[in-house]
C-alpha cells in the first residue's frame, strides 16, 4: 500500500498549524489512492504531540532523542534519510516554512528525490502529480509536474490547505530508533531570540492602516500616519518598509511579523504577497488601495480602490476628518 509521509513541524512543544494542514491534504490524497498516512515526529519529550497526531494518521513515527530537542537541518537530514529509505513513501510532505525551506532542498538532493517547493495545489491522477505554484510574488500561477519518477517530495505553503474535520483515524504510535550519535555536527543550534516588544501593539487595534513599498520613500510615511490618526487607526506596514528601516519591526504584518485581526484593515500600496496576507487575512473587513487592478491583494480584500495612493490618501484623510466633525 502506498504511503504519504508528513514531516510534523513543531516548536517549543507546540504543533504548528502547517502540520494539520498537510495531514488534511494527505488524507484527501490517500483516500483517492487507497493509501496510508504516516507522520514523522522528531523531538524530545513530545509524547503528547505524538498522541495528538494519532487522530490524523495511520502511523505516527516517533523519533525521540535529546539531540532533537530543537530543529537542526543536519540532524533532521540524518533521521529522515533513514526513515524515508526504510518506509519508501510515495510522497513526502514538508511545510514551506522557515524549517522546511531549510532542510527540504538538501534532503531532496541527498535522497535524489524530485522536489517541488511552495505548492498551493496538489492534484493526483493515477500516479501523475499536477502541482500549483505561484510566480512573481503571487501575480501569476503555474502548473508544474514532475519529469522523473517518484518517490516525490513536495513542500506546501502554510495556509494553502484548509484543515478538514474528519473522523479520527486512531493510528498507532511507533517508536523509531534515532540514528544520531554524539559525533560532531557542522551546524550547531545556540539559542532562540524572541521578538522584541515594542512601544505599540498592532494586534490590539480595531482599525489598522498598513503601508507597503508603494509609498516609495520614508518621507511619505507621515502622510499615511496622518490618515491613520484621522480615522483613529494604528499604523502598520509590510516587510519592505521595515527592511528599509522606515518603520520599526513591531509594526510589520505577516509570517515573519505579526498576525493581526482588526475590525478594519486598510492596505495601502501593498501587493498582497502570501507572507503578508497570512498575517492579515483574519481581519474583519479589508480595504485595499493599489494602482494595479491585478494586485493579488484585491483577491483577499472586501473593498478595493484602484487608484494612485498619493492622490487618494490625502483626500480620504481630509474628507473623513470633515465628516467626523459633523
Amino acid at each position, binding site marked *: 500500500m502506498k504511503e504519504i509521509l508528513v514531516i510534523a513541524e513543531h516548536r517549543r512543544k507546540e504543533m504548528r498549524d502547517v502540520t494539520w494542514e498537510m495531514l488534511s491534504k494527505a488524507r484527501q490524497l490517500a483516500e483517492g489512492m487507497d493509501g496510508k498516512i504516516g507522520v514523522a515526529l522528531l523531538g524530545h519529550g513530545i509524547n503528547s504531540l505524538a498522541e495528538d497526531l494519532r487522530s490524523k494518521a495511520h502511523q505516527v513515527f516517533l523519533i525521540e532523542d535529546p539531540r532533537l530537542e530543537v530543529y537542526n537541518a543536519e540532524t533532521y537530514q540524518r533521521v529522515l534519510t533513514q526513515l524515508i529509505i526504510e518506509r519508501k513513501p510515495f510522497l513526502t510532505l514538508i511545510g514551506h516554512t522557515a524549517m522546511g525551506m*531549510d532542510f527540504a*532542498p538538501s534532503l531532496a538532493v*541527498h535522497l535524489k528525490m524530485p*522536489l517541488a517547493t511552495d505548492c498551493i495545489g496538489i492534484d493526483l491522477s493515477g500516479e501523475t502529480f499536477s502541482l500549483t505554484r505561484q510566480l512573481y510574488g503571487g501575480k501569476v500561477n503555474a*502548473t508544474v509536474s514532475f519529469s522523473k519518477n517518484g518517490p516525490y517530495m513536495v513542500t506546501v505553503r502554510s495556509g494553502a490547505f484548509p484543515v478538514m474535520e474528519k473522523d479520527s483515524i486512531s493510528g498507532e504510535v511507533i517508536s523509531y530508533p534515532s540514528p544520531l550519535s554524539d559525533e560532531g555536527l*557542522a*551546524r550547531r543550534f545556540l539559542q532562540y531570540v524572541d521578538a522584541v516588544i515594542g512601544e505599540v501593539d498592532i494586534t490590539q487595534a480595531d482599525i489598522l492602516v498598513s503601508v507597503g513599498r508603494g509609498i516609495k520613500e520614508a518621507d511619505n510615511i507621515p502622510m499615511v500616519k496622518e490618515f491613520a490618526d484621522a480615522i483613529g487607526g494604528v499604523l502598520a506596514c509590510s516587510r519592505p518598509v521595515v527592511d528599509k528601516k522606515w518603520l520599526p519591526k513591531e509594526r510589520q504584518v505577516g509570517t*515573519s511579523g505579526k498576525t493581526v485581526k482588526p*475590525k478594519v484593515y486598510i492596505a495601502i500600496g501593498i501587493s498582497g504577497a502570501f507572507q503578508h496576507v497570512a498575517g492579515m487575512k483574519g481581519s474583519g473587513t479589508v480595504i485595499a488601495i493599489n494602482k494595479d487592478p491585478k494586485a493579488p491583494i484585491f483577491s483577499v480584500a472586501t473593498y478595493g480602490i484602484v487608484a494612485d495612493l498619493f492622490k487618494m490618501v490625502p483626500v480620504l484623510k481630509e474628507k473623513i476628518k470633515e465628516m467626523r466633525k459633523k
Partner: protein
Amino acid sequence: MNLIVCIKRVPETADADVSIDKSGKDIDKSGLAFDLNEWDSYAIEEAIRLKEKMGGTVTVLSIGGEDSNESLRKCLAMGADEAMRLTDPAFDGSDGLARAKILAEAIRKIPYDLILTGTQAEDDGYGQVGAALAELLGIPHATLITRLEVQEKKVKVHRELEGGLEEVCEMDLPAVLTIQTGINEPRYVSIMGIRKVAKKEIKTLNASDLSLKAEEVGFAGSDIRLEKVYLPPTGEGAEILEGKPEEIAVKVFEILKDKGGLA
C-alpha cells in the same frame, strides 16, 4: 576570505501590468524593467561588507544570457572583484535543482570559504537553490539569515523563524548561507559607478567548461517541468469602490463607521 555570491537578474513585476505570453509558459517580458533579484542585492552587500572588514575577494556568479551582465556589473560597481556568467543553450529550462548543479560545478573550480545566495528569487520563488547547492558541495548551510558574524573558521548566524522569533546557530566553514532581506542596507550604485566597471571582464563558462553533460542540466536535468502559467483566479474578489476620490471617501467613511466602530 574567499566569498562567492550567486545572483539572478529578474523582471520587476510588482508595479507592472503582467500578462501571459503566447507560449503560455511565461509572462510577456517585453516592456518590463529588470534588476538584480531583491534578496541577492542584500547578499552581495553582505559579502562586500565582510570583505571590507576582513579582507579577501568577492566573486559573483550568475546563470543567464548576456542580459545578466547588467546585474553582474552592478555587483562589480558595488565592490565585487570578479564576475562570472554561466551560460549555455543546454542550461535553458533548468529548474532549481539543475541551477544548483551548474553553480556547484562552477564553484568547485574556485577557492571558497563562504557562499551567499538569496533566500528566494522574485520570479519563480523556489527558495531551493541555496540549500541544494550546499548539499551538492557537501558543506553545511543555513537559510533565512538576518545577521552573520565570521569567527575563526566558523560563522555565527541569526536565522529568521516565524512571528519575529530568531534562532542563533554556528557553523563550520566553508558553508552556504541564504540571505534574507533587511540584513543590511544595500549601497546605492551611481551611473558613474557602473561606467567605471563597464570595461571589466566578465568571464563566461559553458557546459563543457564545467564538465556538465547535456542530460544533467536544462530540461533534461530538471526534476520539475512547467506545464503552463496563468493569471490567478480572483475568486469573489473585492467590491471595487468607484467614483471621484471624494465619493470614495464617503463610502470608506461609511464602512469605517459600520465595520470599524468609527464614531
